[in-house]
């Protein structure tokens, strides 16, 4: 009887917490079984995984394994509109700056990193981030940059520049970053 009463109290607390959108604290004392609190489970450090960190990596071919080249100060991220991968006209001068740097440094190669704000699913934002990076690569090609010198990578919503959760942060996170590397 005690058990069912406790379960009743827990069920009411859970529903109330959900209805008000707040978090309840730990379930009441005396709960028979509590998978909600695995604090005592050792999540492990080094060597606790199934295999060594890095096992199974695919070797080579990526520019980002080359020596990095510091970006000149005038190179700035390109920002995008919500759920849009077109380079806005207001941002095209930034692409021109990158094109000028690459033209003046023929041994330098570039990875364009596409990023999204946190709204939408992680998976859809992966695709959106890829298109943003590609849109910048296309804009560079239109300014005469050989496509073989530019790789793209999407980080989706996984690498925000601003960890905030408001419109200001989102604006800073819908972006393409530029990472330069020493090619030949």
């Amino acid at each position, binding site marked *: 009887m005690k058990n069912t009463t406790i379960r009743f109290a827990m069920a009411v607390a859970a529903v109330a917490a959900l209805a008000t959108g707040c978090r309840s604290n730990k379930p009441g004392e005396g709960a028979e079984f509590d998978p909600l609190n695995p604090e005592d489970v050792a999540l492990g450090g080094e060597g606790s995984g199934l295999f060594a960190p890095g096992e199974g990596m695919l070797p080579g071919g990526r520019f980002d394994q080359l020596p990095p080249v510091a970006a000149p100060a005038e190179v700035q991220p390109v920002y995008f509109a919500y759920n849009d991968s077109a380079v806005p006209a207001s941002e095209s001068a930034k692409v021109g700056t990158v094109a000028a740097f690459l033209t003046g440094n023929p041994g330098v190669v570039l990875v364009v990193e596409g990023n999204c704000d946190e709204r939408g699913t992680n998976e859809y934002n992966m*695709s959106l981030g890829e298109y943003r990076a590609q849109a910048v690569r296309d804009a560079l090609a239109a300014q005469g940059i050989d496509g073989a010198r530019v790789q793209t990578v999407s980080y989706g919503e996984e690498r925000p520049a601003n960890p905030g959760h408001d419109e200001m942060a989102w604006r800073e996170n819908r972006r393409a970053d530029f990472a330069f590397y020493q090619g030949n």
Partner: protein
Amino acid sequence: MPSSFHETQILRHSPLRGLALAAAIALAAAAPHPASSAPIVVTGTATVGDKQTVSFARLRTDGSGPASEFAKTLRNDLEISGWFISTDRPEASVVISGAVRAGGAGGAAWSLDAAWRGGSARRTWARACDAASVRDAAHAVADAMVEQIAGKRPMASSKILFVGKRGAATDIYECGADGAGLRRITTDGKLCISPNWIPRRNAFLYTSWLTGAPVAYMVDIANRKRSPVAAFPGMNNGAVASPLDGSIAAVLSLTGNVELYLVDGASRRISDRLTRTRNASEASPAWSPDGRALAYVSDAGGIPRLHAMDLATRTPRRLVWATDIRESVAPDWSCTGKIAFCGRSGGRYRIYSIDPARDPRTTRPEALSPADGADWEDPSWAPDGRHVVCTRTAGYRRSLYVLDTKGDPPRELFRLSGDWYLPSWSDNAVFSRQQL
């Protein structure tokens, strides 16, 4: 005590139904308690809604750690299966008797007898296990009871994979269907997303930036191996293995266009390209249970929406037409043929379910998550076809919840600091090899 509760029928699809159920149980608990020497009564009709009551009054344990863990795990599994309400009263539609005690090597030994259908149906489970298998053994007994007594698909032995973010480090983690047994699978601390179990195997596919670019890997948990399955130029994401032939659907961008492809599971070469949508994004492929169709997301119409494609005809069709659901993303196809997805409505993300066999223009998706001001995303069906695990974001924190399509209240899988998201729920059979 009344044998059923009319209110629970009325509230069947209401979030309040859980309250009504709980109130019913409390009423039952408040009734006079018979002496413990009372005879076992297998009433056969003591149900609450579509749940059977199951009595643990006659199950004895020796108080040892393994025996208690076995009994608690079993009882909890029956509760969260959704088909039973456990009670310490002797009257119930299912009565479990027998004993659990400490076994050799720190394990447990049990001899359980279940009686139901008024006592006309009986089954005994008797066995012992070692210390490492106590919970798995209890899960296996719970699964057998769900199958044989309730006649339903079990899920207690299944596992849930997800991304865990603690501090800046992101890795893949795993836990049981009951939220216990949490462990970290990868230890790279690198960005990773999209873990998806491979049907009928203790193995999964996921995307990691191990090399700097998003590459799809296969992790064989049993053999502790990891290898790349899609590492084409550009993006490799959303890899999911077919239940039919092991071919892998994935979202790739090697042509400069984000499209849906099939990759041969053995040779790991592209075997087919499924979409040709210039300047549109595809994402989140999910196989139908028969492996003949894919649900996926495409924004070819301007905003991301759910589509399905029969692989024989290759014709995409839009699945969600409800005007108040602006975006429909992250599909997952259940063993019963329903598709769960995440829809954006009123500025919030909620979990919905649809039957793709019905006309999508006239079929209203059923909301599974409560309208509680939180965002609910990333649904993945349990192998029972009844429950759905998903991510709940509230206060900018992501945690995992299990939703019930039959109206039980949402259940938080576990509570631990960090962000927990993108869950994938496994088959049951692959992990239920525990001997009975």
